[in-house]
């Protein structure tokens, strides 16, 4: 079950940024996905207050905005961590041992794939394929790619997290 973020953002908080986004669009319902994409780029997730404003702008029910936001994997309804770790679970990575790397990553961060650490440092995601199959198993942290991963290399990549909660 997907829940909306428990942020306290109000209409007034999101209005300025949304106004700028809306200025690129005409208000037609087919623009919903690009509007959501741009909104997420600005806020790094989809705040509930913003989703309500988007529904009004495109003249569609709030439930439609929620329905589309929860259908596509790209859209996040809760704030993301400062860094986003994407573990490739493509076929080439799988047969070369990506599962063990993911398990170790989940253990070290203390979260499951799809979650964010309590200190808001990392969000851990899995992706279908990042198209760097020759470097399998691979992962990325933001725009940096790490190839030929092993469970042991997870700690190196994360560095010292002993101070983290």
């Amino acid at each position, binding site marked *: 079950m997907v829940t909306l973020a428990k942020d306290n953002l109000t209409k007034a908080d999101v209005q300025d940024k949304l106004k700028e986004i809306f200025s690129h669009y005409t208000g037609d*319902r*087919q*623009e*919903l*996905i*690009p509007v*959501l*994409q741009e909104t997420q780029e600005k806020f790094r997730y989809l705040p509930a207050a913003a989703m309500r404003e988007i529904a009004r702008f*495109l003249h569609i029910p709030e439930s439609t905005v929620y*329905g*589309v936001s929860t*259908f*596509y*994997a*790209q*859209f996040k309804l809760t704030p993301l961590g400062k860094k986003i770790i994407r573990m490739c*679970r*493509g*076929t*080439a990575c*799988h*047969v*070369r*041992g990506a599962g*063990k790397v993911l*398990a*170790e990553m989940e253990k070290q961060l203390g979260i499951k794939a799809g979650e964010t650490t309590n200190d808001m440092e990392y969000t851990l995601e899995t*992706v*279908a*394929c*990042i*198209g*760097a*199959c*020759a*470097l*399998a198993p*691979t992962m990325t942290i933001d725009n940096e*790619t790490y*190839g030929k991963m*092993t*469970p*042991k290399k*997870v*700690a190196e990549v994360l560095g010292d997290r002993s101070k983290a909660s």
Partner: protein
Amino acid sequence: MTEAKPVKDNKHTIYICQGTGCVSGKSIEITEALSRAVTEMGLTGVKIDFTGCHGFCEQGPIGIVEPEGIFYTHVAVADVPEIVASHLRDGKPVERLYYKDPVTGQAIMYHKDIKFYSMQQRIILRNIGHINPERIEDYIATGGYESLRKVLKGMTPEQVIDELKRSGLRGRGGAGFSTGTKWEFCHNAKGDQKYMICNADEGDPGAFMDRSTMEGDPLTVIEGMTIAAYAIGASEGYIYIRAEYPLAVKRVRLALKQAEAKGFLGKNIMGSNFSLNIHVKEGAGAFVCGEETALMASIEGKRGMPRSRPPFPATSGLWGKPTTINNVKSLATVPVIIARGADWYAGIGTEKSKGTCVFALTGKIANSGLIEVPMGIQLRKIIYEIGGGIPGDKKFKAVQTGGPSGGCLPENYLDQSVDYESLTAAGSMMGSGGMVVMDEETCMVDVARYFLSFTQAESCGKCVPCRVGTKQMLDILERICRGEGRPEDTDLLQKLGEQIKAGSLCALGQTAPNPVLTTLRYFRDEYKAHIEEKRCPAKVCPRLISFYILPDKCQGCGICARECPAVAIVGGKRMVHVINQDKCVKCGTCLDVCPARFGAIVKVSGETIDVPAEPIPIKAEKPKASA
């Protein structure tokens, strides 16, 4: 934009691959370092340029020095000074960066002599790796936009459709429907507005050919799309690309802008009456949107769920208007068919499957990468000659074609012809062209579980057989992998699989059971071993394997204990180390790090090995020091 200098003015041009694989190997930094080094040494007549994906990602980052065609592999920033000083300045190529044949070990200097390339026939990928994808002049210099000119100056839409039909081109997105016939349906459909869509929502894990095409030669796709739009009578076009492919999105947008500036898009293209606008729509991370009706729903701003057909998109597609949807590779082929003629294209391939097909060859294979081969080639040729076989003397077990919905074919299918009909008959499919090679260390039950976990997660939820059925199948497979399989499970999987195939609306559900059904068909004994003997023959499924340290081999070096991520190994100096089986996470790190000359760690399944419960002083003799 800097204008391309003709190559003949330069003594050398060095092209660095900037496909996604090589970029992750720092090829952008390498390109910059080359430019700096050339400037610092004051070399003139040397040009540094970049290309899209060469397809040989295993060897990346890749550089090619023209005009000789010298091929450098695994280039690092640290190699730059030597390349510039030795090769570009003194004319002495850097031999240690040559490609080494995985079979003979021989170093190969020229691009054209490498078997990975020489056995391919590149039509769709013809320009990739040879032109700068961000410069339309490069594309034009290879004959780009000649085909569109030919069409607009002298062919009616009917003639274009006829040419395509005669060429025998079939949809490269996987379904294999005749492209010309598809266009004809849409051409004949009544409507004031028609749409042309390029399906670039490549979602298969392990497939990256559409991505490489758009990153390496975006204009061939756009030209093909423009010809298609002319044939069907569309004035609006959409390219639907995954948002996960930011580089492809960037290059396609740039290519569209350049094509418009040259008058190849927009109003009255090349002075004709034909006008076309193309828009880019970014997907938002839903595998099912590769299905055409789901893709159109997504463009309309809705949840990307497939609907039943008919009506087909050709009569009622985007916003209820006649629409044609073609895959990236189908469209990239179109300009070549127009330029060289239907007869030429139909001369390649088999009787029913014409032309070439592109595969992303990955997994347990020496030469991972992107290949293009004529239809009808044998799997054995792809795997052993182009792919260079399986690394590390391992035995071939299976090849999986068609992405997560394809099937796994065993060794006796290696002489199988690769074409739409043969692969389907074997229980697999062409699909979008993923080809994953598996060796004896791959567990087929685990592979089936893996593919199903993917399709199950990507099921849109509309049809019950797909939504609930794949979940049930996955539960059973997970149970089997945990060693909790029941004797009736294989029959249950078979029955469920057949029902899901029959009862689902779209191709996702109709093909999701394929990996399970083919592994049941060809590797049933592996299922039996898991269920009846609680044994994983490939020693993969974590719950069914154990690691042991052999007391007569252990030297007490402590490497395993230091490297173990679970701190499950106890020992001490000159003590036989012991693995705490309750703490062990079965990651296999100890096995990897134990020095080969000791060979003290074993992995077993279905058996236990008698070892001490606590560390004891070592008895083993020191093995003779050898190289």
